[in-house]
């Protein structure tokens, strides 16, 4: 499992795992993109846009939520789903990344916000990084 959806009455909850923190970020982005448009990234054959993103936060949990929020904002403004990512800098409190996006016409699901509620990046008993992310939809 790299991510799975878990039941939540009003919103969408995603449980994500990764062998490394960087992989957790990549898998969280995949999970978010799949909410926005199911299967879109599996079929992408070209990138139409490229953006640079830089996010700093005081903890790895806040960094993940803030990173996803900034990608979501760019997704909405650029009308591009960013299926490709290359981290040029990655630490627990700061990331710099190149995002590669593909234009889309409309979403399956509109994500209003990515919440800190129940988000907690930690290692599970298998040694993987994991967290739950609740999306306001």
């Amino acid at each position, binding site marked *: 499992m790299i991510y799975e*959806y878990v*039941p*939540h*009455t*009003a*919103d*969408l909850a995603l449980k994500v795992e990764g062998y490394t923190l960087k992989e957790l970020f990549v898998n969280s982005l995949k999970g978010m993109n799949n909410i*926005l448009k199911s299967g879109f990234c599996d079929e992408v054959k070209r990138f139409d846009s490229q953006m640079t993103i830089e996010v700093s936060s*005081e903890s790895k949990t*806040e960094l993940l939520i*803030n990173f996803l*929020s900034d990608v979501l*904002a760019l997704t*909405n*403004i650029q*009308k591009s789903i960013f299926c490709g990512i290359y981290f040029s800098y990655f630490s627990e409190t700061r990331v710099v990344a190149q995002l590669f996006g593909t234009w*889309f*016409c*409309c*979403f*399956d*699901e*509109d994500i*209003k*916000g*990515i*919440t*800190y*509620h*129940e*988000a907690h990046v930690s290692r599970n008993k298998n040694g993987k990084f994991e967290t739950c992310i*609740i999306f*306001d*939809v």
Partner: protein
Amino acid sequence: MHKVTKEHINKLADYFWEIPKSFREDMRVPAQILASEKILDDIIEDRSLNQLVNVATLPGIRKAALVMPDVHEGYGFPIGGVAATMHPDGAISPGGIGYDINCGVRLLTSQLTKDDIKDQLEALSKELYAQVPSGMGKGGQIRLSSEQIDEVLRTGAEWCVEHGYASQEELKYIESHGKLKWADPSCVSQMAKNRGLDQLGTIGSGNHFVEVASVDEIYDREAANAFGLCENQVVVMVHTGSRGLGHQVATDHIRVMVSAMRNYDIRLPDRELACVPFNSEEGKNYFKAMCSAANFAWCNRQIISWEIRNAWNTVFGENGGQLDLMYDVAHNIAKVEKHVIDGKEEKVIVHRKGATRSFGSGFDELPDEYIPIGQPVIIPGSMGTCSYVLAGTIKSYDLTFGSCCHGAGRRLSRRAAKKQVNAPVLKEQLRERGIYIEAGSFRGIAEEAPIAYKDVNSVVETVNCSGVAKKVAKIKPLVVVKG
């Protein structure tokens, strides 16, 4: 943290329950629930009451943290929550307003009856779908310049008057006359403004919709007359908010507050409750940005009304008559209001997240003909059921800081609804009952199926019997347009 069970809840009166302050030592006030016993039994099933207890820990919270009968679990605040904090140094919490700032409802009244339009429902549904942009990621017909978006954020629905989308008279029929004067576009990020540039006049997706309905039953003739409602009359309801601009304002300021809380030594059980003192720099900046987003939402619903009128005129021509605005009310917002607490009038910051203001008779912001009745409260039900028009009451000031419910309240998750509902079949079943659905996808229909929601009749009966609002009319859907 242990889960709230019925043993922890005391009955204060019919339809009114309390979790005492002693339930958890970090509670600053009790937590109160407006519900029938049956609804309370359902509410206990999810975690909304634990979330309410968390709200009761907010710095400066006054009297009680409250939930309405349509409450359900959210993140941070439960949906259907009301919290009033001390002005000016109590907390302001963006989570107590939600990501969709000034999500709200408006109702337009027509001069036609359901018999007048029964043969044109399908044409009307298709024309509305064509004229009112819906769905995710879709822009509208208006593209604002950066100067224009600042004007919209500053002036709200007034912008529509200046640009021919509304009449001056119409503004009286909007909560706060469609403009919060504390708005300051300089507190709204460029990212948020960019998200809003092409979103005026769009409904978005999820539970947002345009619905054509007819008045099915009148409960209070005097109030209905004042609101311009009569049996079989066709009305149009709009449910949407501040779109991506409001979502970004919330995201930006929650992020600021999560960090800033440490400077004010605020510790909370959930980061999504992040808050700062209202009169702090961060608090003032958020409030000014929230007011700007609220203004954007009122402008959005006004432009959608203009699009609806265009569709109406296309279908009915000169036989269609006018569509008049009955009222427009917010249900995700914070307002500085005066309320009586412990016998003394106090200024408080009232957070309503999935709760509607329901001020009673004598409220002088209302149009003259509504003042003896009270403020109209519009409660949408689910896609295939019914909705209600209520009137606010003076009793609501005492019980709920002048608030009541905002809808039916979600019962099933979107995924659960999709598993249980066959959308093409549902669409056909609704069609057989005379309800036309136009939606961007079957997925959207399944997620918003009636089975996904609580019974709106029980919710409305609770607010009616408890006295926080009174029933005026029931309306039934004829056409639903959604993203």
